[in-house]
């Protein structure tokens, strides 16, 4: 039932949210990461994301499957390509019967995605181009 997608298409938050709605669930937690302008003294102009397909998708499945096995629903979308300020880079949503679980799982998914899913950002700042965080 999960929906996992890595693509250049813009992230449609409203449509992804709709996939999480179900009479079975009472709590939906979503995390959206957007392109931020300032990181301390560094000003970001835009970001380009790339991914190792389909390893990245496989890693997402590995993350989502154990959570869905506990009865929740997982929706993850990551955008690749060129992103401007405030564009959504990632959407992670979990619908669960109880909100504590939804919070825990949503945070676990984004934390783990940032460690184990082969996606890279190349940040073009006003002073330099930077790979990674």
């Amino acid at each position, binding site marked *: 039932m999960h929906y996992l997608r890595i693509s250049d298409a813009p992230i449609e938050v409203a449509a992804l949210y709709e996939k999480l709605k179900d009479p079975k669930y009472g709590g939906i937690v979503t995390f959206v990461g957007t392109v931020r302008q300032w990181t301390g003294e560094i000003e970001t102009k835009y970001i380009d994301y790339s991914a190792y397909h389909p390893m990245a998708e496989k890693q997402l499945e590995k993350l989502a499957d154990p959570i869905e096995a506990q009865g929740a629903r997982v929706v993850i979308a*990551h955008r690749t390509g060129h992103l401007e300020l405030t564009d959504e880079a990632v959407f992670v949503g979990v619908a669960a019967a109880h909100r504590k679980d939804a919070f825990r799982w949503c945070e676990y998914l*984004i934390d783990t995605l940032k460690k184990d899913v082969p996606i890279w950002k190349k940040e073009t700042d006003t002073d330099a181009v930077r790979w990674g965080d």
Partner: protein
Amino acid sequence: MEIQVKLFAMLQEQLGDSVAVEVPAQPTADQIKGAVGQLAPNVRQMVSTARLAVNQEFAGNGQLKLSAADEVALIPPVSGG
């Protein structure tokens, strides 16, 4: 044996989509990384922080039984999200 190693992100920018390197039979991840690192001094640091993937799974530290059909890749520190 000679293997092809796929590259991504900053490594791809420096060396291209993939490189061919000569490694011992049943090489370890560190041996493969060492071979790629010797291709250019400016990538040694990047290679040292990368993880090896075989057939799109992260590889462990032991010896790898590779055949020509296996897909080997170096995964620089990821930064999605």
